[in-house]
């Protein structure tokens, strides 16, 4: 049997969910025996592959880039996992929603700048007006809450997903865990 293709993606998150995946430590090596990590911040693939079996997506959708990415990921992925509270509820990144992107940009790049105040606009992507969780853009197959979900949660969930055993998520993790 060929190995399952796994992708891990960062949208607007803090990387804590990715770090928690790495917190599986040596167990990662066993996971890598049964899945191929085809796309992730820790490998060198630049373009999202065509047929991914499982994608773990961290973070909320906050910029036009994020939105483009999540649509592409959905189109090329069998099972999409929203990992962590930011992906599922918007969590910390969505705290800017009542304020709006303009005030955020003004504070960072105009008020709190002492030289060349200006809003960056070259190459960098435009922010969405509202930060929203992934399922408001595309269908999500599995929700794995936690800030971040623990390494044990990832280990149990990936093992179950790889072997087709049903997942009992409430037994594994909770929001804010």
């Amino acid at each position: 049997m060929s190995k399952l293709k796994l992708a891990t993606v960062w949208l607007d998150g803090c990387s804590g969910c990715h770090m928690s995946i790495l917190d599986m430590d040596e167990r990662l090596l066993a996971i890598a025996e049964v899945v191929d990590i085809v796309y992730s911040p820790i490998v060198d693939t630049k373009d999202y592959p065509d047929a991914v079996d499982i994608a773990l997506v961290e973070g909320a959708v906050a910029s036009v880039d994020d939105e483009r990415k999540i649509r592409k990921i959905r189109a090329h992925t069998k099972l999409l996992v929203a990992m962590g509270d930011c992906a599922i509820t918007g969590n910390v990144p969505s705290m800017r929603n009542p304020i709006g992107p303009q005030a955020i940009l003004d504070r960072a790049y105009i008020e709190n700048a002492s030289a060349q105040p200006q809003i960056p606009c070259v190459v960098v992507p435009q922010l969405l007006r509202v930060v929203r969780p992934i399922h408001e853009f595309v269908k999500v197959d599995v929700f794995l809450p936690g800030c971040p979900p623990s390494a044990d949660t990832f280990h149990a969930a990936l093992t179950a997903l790889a072997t087709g055993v049903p997942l009992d998520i409430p037994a594994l993790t909770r929001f804010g865990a």
Partner: protein
Amino acid sequence: MSQTITIDPVTRLEGHGKITIQLNGEGEVEDAHFHVTQVRGFEKFAEGRPFYEMPSLMARICGICPVSHLIASARACEAIMSVRIPRTAAQLRRMLNLAQMVQSHALSFFYLASPDLLLGMESDPAARHIFGVVAAKPELGRAGIGLRRFGQHIIELLGKKRIHPGWVVPGGVTEPLEASKRDEILAMLPEAYANIQLALAAYKQIADTFRHEIEVFANFQSNYMSLINEDESIEFTVGALRVIDSSGNILEDGILADGFSDLIGEAVEPYSYTKFAYLKSLGYPAGSYRVGPLARLNIAKTMGTPLAEKELAEFKQLASGPVQSSFHYHHARLIEILYGIEKIELILADPLILDKHVRAFAGVNRLEGAGQAEAPRGTLNHHYKVDENGLITWANLVIATGQNNNAMNRGVLQAARHYVKDGKFTEGALNRVEAVIRTFDPCLSCSTHAFGQMPLVLTLLSHNGEVVDRVIR
């Protein structure tokens, strides 16, 4: 026809970054930029929230170095409360910060950079990752995983959670250290020592084969800044800031957190969401400086621990003054890991380390406060203002990556000029340009209080900017 090479995303990096390289009609590199492509707005949405929430909120800026944010934030809150935290709490926080430094450096060196260093800059990109390293060099790959686990496990023992522990609070920490946990950490030390000694020996063996990279990986004169103790030993959690110039002369010294904003300004460039920090006295960009492991070892006169002390002496032999090539960040990182393990052992030997007094309580006694710490990748400053009720009215955060931003951009240009010739380049050449960024270990989630990634696209533009051709790597 001019042409732009885009490396997108820069991989094996902590966050969303792109590199663009502009070629002129002759195919010579004209300019190059490192773009950080997300922004989150912590400085603004913190407003209106109680100051004592800040550490656990600000930790969510970054899952890689949440501890440094916890500590800088708690120290800013303690300035607002006007308290000095109990000595044991200070020692415990120091240990926590060192544990994080060890795990984050292990991540940077082994998971992100070592595929280039141990497998080769030109090695097969499909296997250029930590699993490729474990397959090719099992002992070293496992040493890296072990060192990261060592740091993360200490954080979990102290703070009950590996990422975003709620243990660090304004006033100190929530719970004292139990004897059983101290003993568990002590028992982990021998393996950690063995792992870092193995890595240091392996690094020194191969360092010479990177002579060419050392010459062009952000190898130039600059100023440096880091925390340092009064006895001129390296420090991550307390101490004061020192700034030196490219010859090692002291430009600024004894700077505490509340003096930071007089010293450091931030400039904005249109192509990045990460700002560019500079010394106000020298202006922008002349006042640019580097932070992080290279800066810390250039500034420290002593490590204060025996094994790391020997390594520091050897490191200083690399140059007659400050070590200038950013390639040496890797070496500096390994030395700091060794120091971290030794220092954790020393802290655990403190007779008061199990003391029960670990938290001071107070309300608002000042309307403004700042706190600083060394994150693994460099100096971090949190600065808050509050109202009488302790609600945040203003916040500014200056983060390591912003302070290295100018050097990263100069370094990318320097390497691009070297590796891209006559408009021609190989995959390995572009990987080297990315590897310049990896030496700095920038935390892009931190730097814009942000993050992400995308495909590498080579876009050919005509002189009037029209897209003529696109190649996806």
